[in-house]
């Protein structure tokens, strides 16, 4: 399953990354090598092996429903490219 330039273009759109033609070419090559590397797994016989949903053999990790302090608002908003005293500000959300 080779990765195509169209695949990378679609994924970059989904990831909201604006890539130029040269970047698309480079990333198609680089990502393609990663996909090929993972692709080696398909050579293994897995019919007898149960699917795995998690890398570690752990299950049922829960926390109690007890409220703990949240971040102060100023800290929560600190990384926002644009903000006011209360909220993050983003370009107008349309269509909803």
């Amino acid at each position, binding site marked *: 399953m080779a990765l195509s330039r169209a695949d990378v273009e*679609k994924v970059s*759109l*989904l*990831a*909201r990354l604006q890539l130029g033609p040269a970047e698309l070419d480079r990333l198609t090559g680089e990502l393609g090598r990663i996909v090929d590397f993972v692709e080696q797994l398909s050579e293994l016989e897995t019919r007898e092996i149960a699917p795995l*949903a*998690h*890398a*570690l053999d*752990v*299950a*049922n*990790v*829960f*926390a*109690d*429903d*007890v*409220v*703990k302090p*949240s*971040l102060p*608002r100023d800290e*929560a*908003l600190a*990384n926002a490219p*644009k903000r*006011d005293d*209360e*909220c*993050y*500000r*983003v*370009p*107008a*959300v*349309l*269509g*909803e």
Partner: protein
Amino acid sequence: MSDKVSNPTSTPTHTPASNAGSDAAGNSASNSASTAPYELVIGLEVHVQLATQSKLFCRCSTRFGAEPNTQTCPVCIGLPGALPVMNREAYQLALRTALALHCEIPAFTKWDRKNYYYPDLPKGYQISQFDLPMSRNGWLEIRDPKGEFAPKRVRITRAHLEEDAGKSMHDEVAGRADSRIDLNRTGTPLLEIVSEPDLRSPREAKAYLTELRLLLVYLGVSDCNMQEGSLRVDANVNLHIATPEGTIATPIVEVKNVNSFRAVERALAFEAERQYEAWLETGQRKGDVPKQTRGWDDQRQITYGQRHKEESSDYRYFPDPDLAPVTITVEQVERIRAGLGELPAATRTRLESDYQLPAYDADVIVNQESAFVAYYLAVADGCGDGKQAANWLTQEVLRLMNERNWTIGQFPVPASGLVELLAAVKSGKAPATRAKELFGAMVDGSLALDAAMERLGIAAVSSSEIESLCRQLLADNPRIVADVKSGKAQAAASLIGQAKKRNPNVNPNDVRATCLKLIEQM
């Protein structure tokens, strides 16, 4: 009689739609077999916020109405390195709901990342459940006590546990072209309950939603407050049209932003007609065009097409590596099932069989909160007459609750007070003709029966008091006595008026009977 009682207004979605247009459309759709040239096919997706104190994967508060962005932390705003941990209570509430919906609970479940970009989704993905949801294949039975549709089991495809997104607000004050984002709601636990397309009319859809909400409130898993967004409804709807070449299906439309059950009913009725006209015009069938999303405009009472989000259906789900899967044994499932308590459908059946209530009365009582049912049971058991108790509750108690905007918990007369009143009426201690007036006084003054009787000047009149009063009356009115003796029993009527003047607490029937008896003995 109870069948004349209008549905309680404290639960506004029980009130029949008064909009003539919507009713006409609703009827044509609900009678589609006989009148409309199509069958309306509806499936509902309900998102309900679970009543936890803290969020699904972090310990920020879920309290509604806090100052914007004061209930967030590195986990729920997606800062690097933060680790989500599942809220045990949220999982338990979801499990209780799934079991009450008769779902299968798989032994293994996991959570997945649903990837999409939206400003109110800070991580760039929502933690949801994709191919291995925590529950599937359930059902919810809907009935209409007025018999407008036959009882049916609506199949539940799945119910899964996921996190909520934040809120975006348009900045109307500053008038700038920005949206403001409040992430307090981000990460609040949601149960998404997906039905099969088993509903066939707007009325059935509303019945499903009403019954589902009642169940959720009985279980105590959600407050289901639609104004605060605790319960949200999306409807998938299309038509099956009989044509000479066979039945064809129109494109499926998803209606979003429907903010009340009545609006759901109206939006579906509107969609039925709109889709039929669109089909006449375009002939488009399911599969010809991608699934369309439409919003409901409550002001204009129409649905409108929403901008199609490019690639919006490519969510690239994959298992969330930060979250451990959850496993459950049959024994654990059975233990939770056993602790569910009596659910609304079972309570209705019990009221009909053990208390001899008509289906309508049982429905009105059970459709209130469970505390109302407890009040009813206390009155019915206390007075020994289930129907009499139902009449008092569905007429007097509900009327007063609606008038004064009380919950049953705020009602000033406890069940024991009403039982005392009914017993006093039965024994003759309180006059039956003034029972409602007495109850009103008990309610208005938060009074016990005796105090209410005193306030209204109602004193119990003993039979010896009545007898001496009647003897006096007969002595004072020899002419009436003569009239009655000559066969004109109705002449005694004027004695009653005189008796009431001398003692307003006397029971007119007692006076009449006593006078006639005394005259006979003369």
